[in-house]
């Protein structure tokens, strides 16, 4: 088991190697480095001496030039937090005291197991790679001999299915957009000149944008306030009707 750790870990360069930068892929992550350090210190994972290992970790990532990699930095801060937690006095009895190292120990054991399986897989791949399948594969059968049957309608139905599954794009840029209440007011007035009443949808005009909808809403509220129009809903949930206020001239 421990051999596998050694195999994956490169030699840590000597002390004071300023400017020495090791390939980032030397260790496959901060947990890998941590396991390597534990092995070097001949420490059991369960008895992990946080203070020592935290210092070692910081020193090593500094030496290896890993201290700019976010994953390593995150582990470094985690170790420092643990180091402080271990220094805090335990008040009261031991009952109910939760060892702050437990989570890290669990992760290290789990990760060690992952490494063991990875080695097993590598060996399996090597064994399998010693056997060769048939190398030459005839070119794929020519397409014309197999007339594919699909029609535009099918493709369009497929497009609709795909679209149905698309999650609405979440990228939005917030742009200040002046509402054009004047234009909306003018449009509603023009409509009401021809007809005594119009529907809410009529008042929006063709192909309304979100801005148009808001502008129209504000225009209607303003016109109602001025008594130019009357906004009625004949029944609950019925379409909203905008009527010319008969006593008032439209202009």
């Amino acid at each position, binding site marked *: 088991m421990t051999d596998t750790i050694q195999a994956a870990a490169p030699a840590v360069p000597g002390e004071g190697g300023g400017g020495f930068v090791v390939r980032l892929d030397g260790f496959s992550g901060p947990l890998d480095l941590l396991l390597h350090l534990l092995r070097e210190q001949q420490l059991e994972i369960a008895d992990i001496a946080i203070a020592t290992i935290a210092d070692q970790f910081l020193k090593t990532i500094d030496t290896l030039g890993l201290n700019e990699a976010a994953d390593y930095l995150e582990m470094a801060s985690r170790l420092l937090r643990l180091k402080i937690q271990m220094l805090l006095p335990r008040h009261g009895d031991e009952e109910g005291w939760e060892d702050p190292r437990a989570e890290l120990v669990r992760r290290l054991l789990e990760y060690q197991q992952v490494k063991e399986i990875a080695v097993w897989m590598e060996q399996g791949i090597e064994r399998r790679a010693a056997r060769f399948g048939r190398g*030459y594969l005839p070119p794929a059968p020519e397409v014309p001999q197999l007339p594919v049957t*699909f029609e535009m309608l099918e493709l369009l139905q497929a497009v609709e299915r795909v679209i149905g*599954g698309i999650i609405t794009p979440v*990228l939005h840029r917030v742009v200040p957009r002046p509402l054009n209440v004047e234009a909306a007011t003018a449009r509603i007035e023009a409509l009401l000149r021809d007809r005594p009443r119009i529907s809410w949808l009529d008042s929006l005009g063709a192909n309304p944008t979100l801005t148009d909808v808001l502008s129209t809403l504000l225009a209607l509220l303003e016109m109602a306030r001025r008594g130019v129009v009357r906004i009625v809903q004949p029944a609950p949930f019925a379409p909203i009707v905008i009527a010319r206020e008969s006593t008032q001239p439209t202009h």
Partner: protein
Amino acid sequence: MNPLSQLIEAALFAAARPVTVEELASLDPDASVADARAALDQLRETYDFNQHAVEIVELAGGYQILTRPQFAAALERAQLHIRTPKLTAAALETMSVIAYRQPVGRAEIEEIRGVSAGGVLRTLQERGLIEVVGRSEGMGRPLLYGTTMHFLEMLGLTDLTDLPQAEELTIALQPPKLLESDDDDAEASVPAES
């Protein structure tokens, strides 16, 4: 079989191309070209004598192991390597994504459809409906796919602009981008002009 015949069988089987008799001889440092030729003949006789379904064929200046022609019909029927002509729903959906988003990588196709696309992409490629048109600059430089001339022929289209346009579809199948103009907003937030 003698050891050189075995080595030659392994090499012909594993080789991705026809192998010359000189290459076969070089498999064993002690073997001459004449030795290789003799061993090759022995292998051929073994295949013939024991009525194997494969034989040794001289091809393109080299040798290859191929199935005998009399099995071609049975293999075609079994469709072990030939696929069924009807395109599946998965294939159609993948093709529709590629048609509208090309050039597009596998990851994006899978992101949109929510399922793995490897098998479908291979099928579509084998059917000549899509092709690799380049590589993305992204991590791992993934392959980018686009539709082929054959795709246009199948649909009776002159070119890609003949595909139904964004506004003819319920929601535009457009490349992801920042929503900026009023029109985009309308598409995203107002369902329809009712």
